[in-house]
């Protein structure tokens, strides 16, 4: 077992453990914080995969924005600090079953795929993944259209979120 494998296993365990805590912990703020640690683990996985840019963007977007947003949302939708009542619904056993079935099915199917045990080739020296990514995102031959569509999607989401969460009864104090 090489050092990289050990590091991977540590990170993977950390990520999965955090993920399990996200879905099981009773305190929602803790769940959100566990999500943060899961996201850190995923960022580390990206780093292991030599995707530095994705790793850093993962931290910026997921932890810097999305996780914070979750914490805000949790705090805005509570009557007191404690979470009362059961946090898991009555069909939880079905959920476990389906999840396990999905996991098993995925592994079963992947096992027969030829590239399953492939190892990565060395990155070529001087490989500039950021430059390539940037070009791919804005090149007309590659992904400029999805990129623009994503921008439009973000704008629409922005407007929609403001509209949905806006409370007309509260009004605008400026006016």
């Amino acid at each position, binding site marked *: 077992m090489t050092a990289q494998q050990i590091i*991977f296993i540590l990170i*993977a365990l950390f*990520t*999965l453990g955090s993920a399990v805590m996200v*879905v099981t912990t009773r305190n*929602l703020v803790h769940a959100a914080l566990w*999500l943060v640690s*899961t*996201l850190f683990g*995923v960022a580390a996985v*990206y780093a292991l*995969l*030599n*995707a530095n840019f*994705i790793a850093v963007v*993962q931290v910026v*977007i997921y932890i810097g924005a*999305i996780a914070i*947003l*979750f914490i805000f*949302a*949790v705090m*805005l*939708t509570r009557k007191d600090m404690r*979470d009362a*009542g*059961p*946090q*898991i*619904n009555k*069909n*939880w056993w079905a959920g*476990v079953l*389906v*999840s396990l079935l*999905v*996991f098993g099915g*995925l592994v079963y199917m*992947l096992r027969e795929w030829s*590239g*399953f*045990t*492939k*190892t990565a080739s060395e990155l*070529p020296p001087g490989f500039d*993944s950021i430059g390539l990514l940037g070009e*791919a*995102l804005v090149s007309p031959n*590659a*992904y400029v259209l*999805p990129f623009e569509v*994503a921008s439009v*999607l*973000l704008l*629409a*989401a922005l407007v*929609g*979120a403001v509209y*949905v969460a806006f*409370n007309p009864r509260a009004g605008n104090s400026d006016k």
Partner: protein
Amino acid sequence: MVPHSWYLILAAALFSVGMFGVLARRNAVAILLGVELMLNAVNINLVSFWRYSDVFSMSGQVFSIIVFAVTAAEVSVGLALVISMYRRRNTVIANDVDMLKF
């Protein structure tokens, strides 16, 4: 070196955990947390496929970037809906919001 299978299994496991969260949690915010986990699992897959095939073809990373954008949109709208729901119905429990039933 780490074989590709490890990443795929990690992603599958993360996906299943997230799916459990979506299926079992009562709180709408917690359901969205589960969705996040699933999306992250997908992203791990995308990036690992980039790394384990032709690294000069950036499709995997590009798709993961687009997943970021989609996630951001989904979370903002989803949480806005949750907050709106809390305002109107005074609850964030997904099962209490069942007015569409017969």
